[in-house]
């Protein structure tokens, strides 16, 4: 567990946001190929959850993994190199954005199938229990609860009482607010998402994904309970979907996110203006300014560093070589098997 200062939290959230903006720009310019998913609007969840975890813990994530990796300490240059299919990406260009993983950071593998990581994370938690240290955190979206694998995984976790934290990042849009053509949202017929784990006797919590302080308090407490042998826990993080996620490819409604929007300015884009009160980054910045714990200049300096870091990561990733075609045959089997 790491107690983050306000400046560290702001930096962590801004780094994710500026990274994702670069992905959108790279896609627009035709350099990022394939489908991809950004974490804008959910940054506080990854930052708070990762601050509650320790180095020996494992994390399982999904196709929407950039924020989790960055919050865990992954190198943006190697992430971008991977996302662009380059040889010095974390998987040498084999995973792209969908399966980004960094073993040395306790993120051993990433499934891009809805609910696919949940059974894996339960096994990881079993490994933690058997070795007697660490816990596993599994991030997934609300749609994950529509998969049978997720129910089975929670059942097995509850039956085995393994140390696992299920973090359901609910960014679904209520049916009545959905727009034509908007990405699908949860159609789970349970009254609350938490009813599913509750029915399996897994303790549940619901937190506001726009309130990093509330999340930090929740994650710290729940992680301590799990470490104490309390078995699995389920946290539903209620996020309000960022408007840029509402079409087949992410876009930036109103352009690059502006610090001024956290200082009383209003985006021209109506959707963005409507979403701003739900933006965890803007909310946190406003809170710090009102409390006098951070100054505007300090925030601007942090943002300038985040922007510069990500611009440099993009430049380095674009300069990286593509893998040699023969690399396609490597890593089907482990070296031990190949040596036979």
């Amino acid at each position: 567990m790491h107690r983050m200062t306000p400046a560290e939290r702001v930096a962590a959230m801004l780094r994710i946001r500026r990274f994702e903006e670069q992905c959108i720009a790279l896609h627009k310019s035709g350099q990022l190929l394939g489908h991809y998913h950004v974490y804008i609007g959910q940054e506080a969840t990854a930052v708070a959850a990762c601050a509650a975890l320790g180095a020996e813990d494992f994390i399982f994530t999904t196709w929407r993994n950039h924020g989790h990796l960055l919050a865990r300490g992954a190198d943006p240059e190697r992430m971008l190199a991977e996302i662009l299919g380059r040889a010095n990406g974390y998987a040498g260009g084999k995973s792209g954005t969908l399966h980004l993983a960094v073993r040395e950071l306790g993120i051993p593998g990433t499934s891009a199938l809805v609910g696919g990581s949940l059974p894996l994370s339960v096994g990881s938690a079993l490994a933690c229990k058997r070795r007697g240290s660490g816990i596993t955190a599994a991030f997934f979206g609300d749609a994950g609860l529509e998969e049978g694998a997720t129910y089975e995984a929670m059942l097995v976790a509850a039956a085995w009482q393994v140390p696992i934290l299920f973090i359901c990042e609910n960014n679904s849009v209520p049916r009545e607010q959905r727009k034509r053509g908007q990405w699908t949202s949860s159609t789970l017929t349970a009254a609350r998402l938490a009813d599913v784990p509750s029915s399996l006797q897994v303790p549940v919590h619901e937190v506001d994904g726009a309130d990093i302080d509330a999340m930090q308090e929740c994650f710290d407490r729940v992680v301590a309970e799990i470490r104490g042998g309390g078995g699995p826990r389920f946290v539903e993080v209620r996020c309000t979907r960022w408007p840029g996620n509402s079409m087949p490819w992410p876009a930036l409604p109103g352009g690059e996110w502006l610090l001024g929007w956290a200082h009383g300015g209003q985006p021209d884009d109506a959707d963005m203006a409507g979403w701003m009160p739900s933006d965890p980054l803007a909310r946190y910045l406003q809170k710090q300014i009102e409390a006098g714990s951070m100054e505007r200049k300090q925030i601007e300096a942090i943002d300038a560093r985040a922007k510069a870091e990500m611009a440099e990561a993009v430049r380095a990733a674009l300069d990286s070589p593509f893998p040699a075609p023969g690399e396609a045959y490597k890593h089907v089997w482990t070296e031990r098997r190949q040596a036979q």
Partner: protein
Amino acid sequence: MKISFAEGLAKAIYESLAANPSVVLIGGSIVGLNMAARKFMEPVVREFSARMMVTPVSELALAGAGIGAAMCGQRPLVDLGTGSFVYQAFAQVANEAANVHYMSGGQTSAPVTFYCLAGIRGTGAAQHSQRTQAMLGQVPGLQVLVPGGAEDAYGLMKWALLESDDPTVFISHPLLFGETSEFAPDAPMLPVGKARIRLEGRDLSIIASSVTVPRALAAAATLEREHRISAEVVDLRSIVPLDRDTVLQSVAKTGRAVIADECHRSYGVAAEIAATLAEEGLASLLRRVTVPDVPIPFSKPLEDELIVTADKIVAAALQLRGR
């Protein structure tokens, strides 16, 4: 000394648990409902019950938990029960386990073993008689072991649990449990990926695996006794890796091949062997003895109509010899 197939499995599991504390059993119904074989599992249950995870009926999550535990340092054996239930777990076995090492660019491996008590066992009907080795063989990254004898049941299981760093599907067969073979505890195992010549012969090769191995041996005995035909029996032992070299050498020597395989005829293991022979110019004299492309029925005369028998292997061999 002689051991049985079921005894070999239980012995391998016991010794693996004793040898490496990372080995963990997720489910433990390795010998199914076979009461005679269950006594072999008694030492495992007695000494290692703390490492046998009690499991809900959740094949998908149990397979995934085995993979996830393997990704984080454990060496699990996941018992999927009746082999047909691998379909329940297929998303995790085929789309997760097989891809872990590749997708992570070699960062992570998943040394998990999925145990499937598979095959046409009598009265299993359509949903409990599946042979999925050919389908699983289509998934790069999965090792598929198909022992046809007791010494290989022991050796391959022990190898999967203690030596392999890659995910493995272990295809067992209830009708093999009583098969016995000579067993020397300290003898090194024939390496994985090497086929075993069960019987040397001159006139034709019978390529077999799993339950068709004893049937091929029975057919070879009949061919020798009644027709003076000397058959060579090649036991593949594993579908992935597949020992193409030994198959090619045997058929190059004998000039004829009968491929006996319990998968469905189309796109099966036999089809892959036949294609391998064809590409090397050895296809002119071969026959496949396989299960027709129909589901497996319950009633005995209906099931008997479809299964690969020693008689059918003999008939195919006689055809090839022009008799």
